[in-house]
């Protein structure tokens, strides 16, 4: 049986306008592509002439357009009356569209439908086909992207490769003899979960007791006395139930938002509340994001141990617990990427375990950034970080190695040297690292004048140099455009969008974006700020299409300088013969650069039994 919705229709298209007919032409094309028979009239015909042609054509749809606004209601009302009088309404639907049209006005004037600004030709074609409201809201068959597929991690630059391999092997050997409370807790967390899953209640309780003895500060108080962790509270049953109301057990579909469908734009979230996070994730995925990055509170990184249960937090960052992550995971579409970060702090191995248990697709590891730019003791993070690399490999969890120490002022050449060593260690351990150069206006770039002329060259140089060193995926972040955004919504969204488009056009596997609220510190990021930014990214990708962005010759020079600086840094670290000592001694970034070895977790590393 033929579906009436898809039957061929006769459509008369007429611009009731002195000159404007582009929209009508685009709609005519869309209709013809779907097999409809279209009669497109020229502009500047009178209503009488259009009605006369309609009587000849005997269409199923009479579609008129109007761009200019003066006299529009009177003209359209008269046209509708004439169609009535001519008996056309019994066999044809009367439709009006154009820049001056509002749906409500069209209905008041007697039209069957009205299409205003922002209508796409496809929407009009859907209306004719009887599928309007379906395709624009329809999900698309997205496949979860694998950002690491096809990469070999072979070094193309053998000189740099040899140094990275030597240093990384030294780091792995060094860490093999050491452990930390963070590593022990990660092991216990796995055992607790296994015991719970196996119904071994007594064992789980005993393991939990051992776990709590390895915690510190407010988390220890929470385990021992139940005292609330400052600025947090348990989610109420009503809040937890919100997840059931939201999804009925099924994640919201990914909505088609071309051209974002074909790229991987990842957005950050971490409002503090899992319920609010869920809405921010859902709206971001609906507006074209391909994934989400979980932001946890910075205090959590400075405290030994993680609590259990679902929590809301009054400040930035959503508390890391397995239960919070599992709740949030429910809102992430199966085809979307979800990253849980383990790049700094005292709970990194356990965070990788939680990421795995909660079903995350990616994590984040960087010993150098966490040590020099995020306050964690280098020895501690080196031991924990290598454990993270081991765990990520075991779980098949890819991870980015981020160079956000550039934001502290560390030159890219030193940050990249650190990133390459950690990525090499990860690859040696069987993992799938992703290089995450900062795509932003860093202190180094500003002081050195690298971004004085444009913001393309230095970022392009980073991609050029990394592509020349190793066959590994690149995922600029995090987020792109850092320090270029202001509190001006338009400026902020534009800068984010251009950085994102640059990264993707230069061949990056993905980009992480913030929102147009990035530079606003007065309160939480708003939902509309996320939408603004995704719309801007989509527009910039539409603008550039598949065209290439050509940096100036300076980018090549910068890339050459970067390579030289990376080589010098690695040579010094290699000569020092001690990766961790190199962190303390500033070889990957010193105090003058703005890098300070962290203190959280100092003197907590012990010999591995």
């Amino acid at each position, binding site marked *: 049986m033929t579906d009436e919705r898809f039957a061929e229709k006769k459509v008369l298209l007429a611009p009731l306008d002195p000159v404007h007919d582009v929209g009508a032409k685009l709609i005519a094309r869309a209709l013809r592509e779907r097999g409809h028979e279209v009669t497109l009239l020229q502009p500047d015909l009178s209503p009488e002439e259009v009605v006369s042609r309609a009587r000849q054509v005997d269409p199923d749809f009479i579609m008129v357009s109007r761009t200019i606004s003066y006299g529009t209601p009177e003209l359209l009302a008269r046209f509708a009356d004439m169609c009535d009088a001519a008996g056309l309404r019994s066999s044809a639907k009367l439709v009006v569209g154009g820049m001056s049209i509002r749906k409500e006005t069209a209905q008041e004037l007697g039209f069957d439908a009205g299409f205003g600004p922002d209508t796409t030709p496809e929407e009009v074609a859907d209306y004719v086909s009887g599928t309007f409201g379906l395709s624009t809201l329809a999900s698309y068959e997205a496949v979860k992207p694998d950002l690491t597929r096809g990469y070999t991690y072979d070094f193309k630059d053998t000189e740099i490769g040899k140094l990275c391999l030597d240093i990384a092997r030294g780091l792995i050997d060094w860490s093999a003899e050491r452990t930390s409370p963070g590593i022990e807790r990660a092991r216990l967390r796995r055992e607790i979960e296994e015991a719970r899953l196996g119904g071994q209640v007594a064992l789980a309780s005993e393991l939990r007791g051992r776990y709590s003895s390895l915690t510190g500060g407010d988390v220890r108080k929470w385990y021992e006395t139940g005292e609330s962790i400052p600025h947090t*509270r348990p989610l109420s049953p*009503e*809040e937890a139930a*919100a997840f059931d*109301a*939201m999804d*009925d057990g099924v994640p919201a579909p990914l909505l088609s938002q071309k051209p974002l469908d074909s790229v991987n734009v990842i957005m950050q979230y971490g*409002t*503090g*509340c899992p*319920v*609010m*996070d869920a*809405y921010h994730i859902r*709206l971001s995925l609906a507006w074209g994001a391909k994934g989400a990055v979980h932001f946890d509170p910075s205090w959590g990184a400075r405290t030994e141990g993680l609590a259990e249960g679902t929590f*809301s*937090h*009054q400040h930035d960052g959503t508390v890391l617990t397995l239960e919070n992550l599992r709740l949030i995971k429910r809102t992430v579409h199966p085809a979307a990427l979800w990253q849980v970060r383990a790049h700094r702090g005292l709970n990194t191995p356990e965070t990788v375990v939680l990421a795995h248990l909660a079903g995350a697709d990616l994590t984040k590891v960087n010993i150098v950034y966490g040590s020099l730019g995020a306050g964690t003791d280098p020895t501690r993070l080196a031991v924990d970080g290598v454990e993270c690399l081991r765990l990520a490999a075991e779980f098949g969890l890819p991870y980015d190695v981020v160079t956000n120490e550039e934001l502290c002022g560390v030159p890219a050449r030193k940050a990249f040297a650190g990133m390459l060593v950690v990525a090499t260690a990860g690859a040696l351990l069987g993992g799938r690292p992703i290089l995450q150069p900062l795509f932003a206006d860093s202190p180094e770039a500003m002081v050195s004048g690298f971004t004085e002329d444009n913001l393309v060259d230095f970022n392009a140089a980073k991609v050029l140099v990394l592509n020349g060193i190793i066959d590994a995926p690149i995922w600029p972040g995090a987020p792109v455009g850092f320090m270029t955004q*202001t*509190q*001006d*919504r338009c400026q902020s969204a534009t800068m984010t969008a251009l950085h994102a488009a640059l990264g993707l056009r230069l061949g990056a596997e993905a980009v992480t974006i913030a929102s147009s*609220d990035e530079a*606003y510190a*007065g*309160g*939480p990021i*708003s*939902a*509309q700020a996320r939408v603004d930014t995704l719309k801007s990214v989509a527009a910039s990708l539409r603008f550039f299409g598949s065209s290439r962005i050509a940096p100036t010759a300076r980018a090549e020079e910068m890339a050459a300088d970067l390579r030289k600086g990376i080589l010098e840094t690695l040579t010094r670290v290699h000569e020092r013969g001690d990766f961790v000592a190199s962190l303390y001694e500033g070889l990957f970034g010193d105090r003058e650069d703005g890098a300070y070895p962290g203190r959280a977790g100092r003197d907590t590393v012990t010999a591995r039994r």
Partner: protein
Amino acid sequence: MRAKERILDACDIEAFFLCDDIEEGKRLGMALMGELGFSDVDVVFCEMAGPGARVRVRGYVNRPGSAYTWQREEGAVHDR
């Protein structure tokens, strides 16, 4: 449920105020939000040029972790 209570988190309003300086622009923005019934308000952005200031003001209706207006029993937002 009132429209304001259906705001997920915050309401942004942008306007160009005819004013003499940036501080007056900010004051007008804040006053506007007060007139509209917002209490948790802030100036997100204000830039003065020519005859006045381009101002973006924000009223938070639901901060993360608060008792969300759209989650209240009567007319709560479901299946959205």
